[in-house]
């Protein structure tokens, strides 16, 4: 068991922003929130999935909605804990531990301060090992956990119990609720046993993200200078493979919102060879990267982008003309490499007309 306190939050958020593959929102706001709440309520206790007792009730907690809105609609102190407290009241069960939906982005910090506020441990792991846009893409439901009963809470103090027969219906329902309840809500969901968690959670991702973030933050210079350490870090982790796919300048971006998702594309031009271009397809996250029309990485493998000069991870919302970026491909967790998981997370699941080819074969 490890303790994770306010002093680790900046590192965790830098790592989480890298693993967010462009989505998950700018973790700055949740970072400030987590720092304040962890400083007040003490550090969170982290527990690795393989240490969790079989009969534990673990609940996944985080925020659902449009990340852009939190830049203006800043979070309240008690929305997430309200969701969890109400979950206990409505289900009549006491929760033994919480687990993040996703290590990518601001959702990595929420269970930490909720755990500290509640005096229970937080799992060192998550349900994606990255960030992805929809509930059915989480490893928890893919490996058997049921999303409901779930309790959602908004900034105005409203809570609501959701019950659904399957995760696809849950996703549609909760997404609609997020839109009607102000754009962003907190959800306590996917209650599962310790045994179920061990099968489904991507392990040790919170501590990994904290180490990754520490490396990026301490360095601060060009990404090329830390490639060796970065490669070693990933090779010794759940991810395994990291490849530098492209370094170039943003020459065009286009974004629009379709059905509640931030859909867009961006074109990068190589710094060395102006004729060489990378195209990025974005749906909240960076989903597909092509170089001169050829796919070089795609979901569920991770496409992670940093500012080339500073090694700072770049959120897709912040992508602008003229930025100089380094684009990485990173192997996804083995949880996503099964046919059943791929059916929900491969390029076709996002409407692209091509099959997934693992990063290591591209």
């Amino acid at each position: 068991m490890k303790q994770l306190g306010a002093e680790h939050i900046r590192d965790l958020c830098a790592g989480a922003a890298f693993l967010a593959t462009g989505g998950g929102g700018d973790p700055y706001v949740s970072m400030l929130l987590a720092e304040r709440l962890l400083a007040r309520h003490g550090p969170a206790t982290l527990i690795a999935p393989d240490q969790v007792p079989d009969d534990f009730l673990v609940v996944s907690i985080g925020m659902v909605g449009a990340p852009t809105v939190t830049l203006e609609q800043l979070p309240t102190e008690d929305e997430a804990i309200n969701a969890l407290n109400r979950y206990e009241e409505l289900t009549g069960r006491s929760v033994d531990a919480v687990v993040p939906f996703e290590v990518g982005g601001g959702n990595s910090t929420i269970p930490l301060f909720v755990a500290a506020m509640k005096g229970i441990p937080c799992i060192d792991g998550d349900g994606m090992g990255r960030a992805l846009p929809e509930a059915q893409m989480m490893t928890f439901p893919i490996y058997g956990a049921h999303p409901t009963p779930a309790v959602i809470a908004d900034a105005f103090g409203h809570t609501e119990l959701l019950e659904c027969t399957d995760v696809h219906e849950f996703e549609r329902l909760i997404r609609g609720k997020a839109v009607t309840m102000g754009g962003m809500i907190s959800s306590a969901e996917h209650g599962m046993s310790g045994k179920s968690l061990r099968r489904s959670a991507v392990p040790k991702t919170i501590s990994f993200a904290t180490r990754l973030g520490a490396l990026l933050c301490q360095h601060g210079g060009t990404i090329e200078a830390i490639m060796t350490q970065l490669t070693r870090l990933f090779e010794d982790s759940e991810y395994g493979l990291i490849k530098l796919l492209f370094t170039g300048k943003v020459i065009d971006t286009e974004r629009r919102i379709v059905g509640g998702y931030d859909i867009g594309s961006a074109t990068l031009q190589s710094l060395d060879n102006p004729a060489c271009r990378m195209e990025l397809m974005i749906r909240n996250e960076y989903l597909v990267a092509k170089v001169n029309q050829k796919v070089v990485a795609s979901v569920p493998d991770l496409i992670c982008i940093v500012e080339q000069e500073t090694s700072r991870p770049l959120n897709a919302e912040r992508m602008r003309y003229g930025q100089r970026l380094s684009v990485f491909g990173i192997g996804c967790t083995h949880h996503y490499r099964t046919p059943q998981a791929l059916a929900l997370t491969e390029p076709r699941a996002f409407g692209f007309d091509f099959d997934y080819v693992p990063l290591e074969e591209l």
Partner: protein
Amino acid sequence: MRLGIDVGGTHTDAVLLNGSEIVGFHKALTSSDVKQGIIDSLDAVLVAGQVDTAEIDAVMIGTTQFTNAVIQRCDLSPTALIRASLPMGSGVPPLCDWPEDALAAVGDHQYMIQGGHLYNGKPIAELDHKSLNRAIADISSKGIKAVAVAASFSPAVAEHELLMAKAVRHRIADATVTLSHEIGRLGLLERENAAVLNAALVDLARHVVNSMERALIERGINCPVYISQNDGTLMAAATIARYPALTFSSGPTNSIRGAALLSGLSDAIVVDIGGTTADIGVLADGFPRESNSHIEVGGVRTNFRMPDILPIGLGGGSLVALNGRKIGPSSVGYCLSTEGLVFGGNTLTATDIAVANGSCKLGDGVHVAHLQAEVIETATQRMHEMIDEAVDRMRPSEKPVPVILVGGGAILISRSLKTASQLIQPDHADVANALGAAIALVGGEVEHFVSYSAITRDEALTQVTQQAQQKAIAAGADAETLRVLDVEETVISYMDDAAARLRIKVVGDLRQTA
């Protein structure tokens, strides 16, 4: 003819420009009396250029005074902030990420009330006038005159900020109010930070702009006066008196643009070494490369678009310690001419090392004759290493790049740099900032909400660009030279499937008057 003046923390420089030809320049130490400093520079440059005041068509002033005030935490007015966002935002209160000394300088006077808008334009809550009035009464009782107001999604719906500003002005007659949506963009925390900094600077700005204008009037100069902004474009001086925060990064922008003109290069690293710091920036296609992320001004996070600058604590006045192993970040600053050893002072500075190692002649070398050769060598190497490291962090790739050295402290660098393919110290490099101000451009910016279901993206881009062009021409830009400097597309709503906020900035040269 144009007169460019740069009022920096250490030096006040002036350049007279006929087209792109320098006909006169002057460099002087900044005096504590801004007006006198400008008059002195003006007189000197007119004599140097043998030019009559009547020949001056426009005056462009660049100043780092407002940035310096924030960095040094001085001349900042006590400032209050009222944020309308509750019940949202209680978890992340205003000013919560400010450095302690910055917070102490403006005072932690923040108020959160109900109000603001949601992403879809609906109110989060009705503006809570009762709490607003209580906040204003408290601000008034503290005697605070500088007030910033911010509300969620005010760049889209300004209503609550306008109401708050009106109430503040009504209850505190001599208040200066900054509305966050007038200076910042989306991102409530950053926008309210920028608004607080702006509000805290308005008093100083009025004084500074007034001094500048009086100086010019005293010398019978009646042409338009512009002050350069962050992006290298000009704004009327009277506007800057209300929005000083818009000048925060004009110093580096001017120096990079000036360096481009002086060197004839359009892609390089520009190292501007002043009295206290060296600013390393990137010249890309003739313009400063803009920062990718949030810009901190004196440790305070803002969301201005600014050139990507890496400042390091090395300048002509930097203190040399530990037998030459440590240089800066402390500096004697503008006291160099009295404190530095070569000027008869008692402090070993970076400039003294440059004189001692023979790279320049300044003051009296006798005063540094006693320095040990080892100390001189160690310090010289350390200065070059510091610049080398900084260039390495900023260059676009591992390939060596041309490095242009400008600023009064450029004398510190006399040897080759590992990171530089060539080292250029152009003539007049010490007045690059004033030159950059003199060649600053005129901009036009237009922001619109567009719906791509009603109009194609290309059509929208064309229309908004045309409007920005018209605005730039109206502001005095030469139509022939207009080009798009920036396109920003922000999606704010997912109620309409194809709505975007489109902000386009075009720039052009100042139209030559006959």
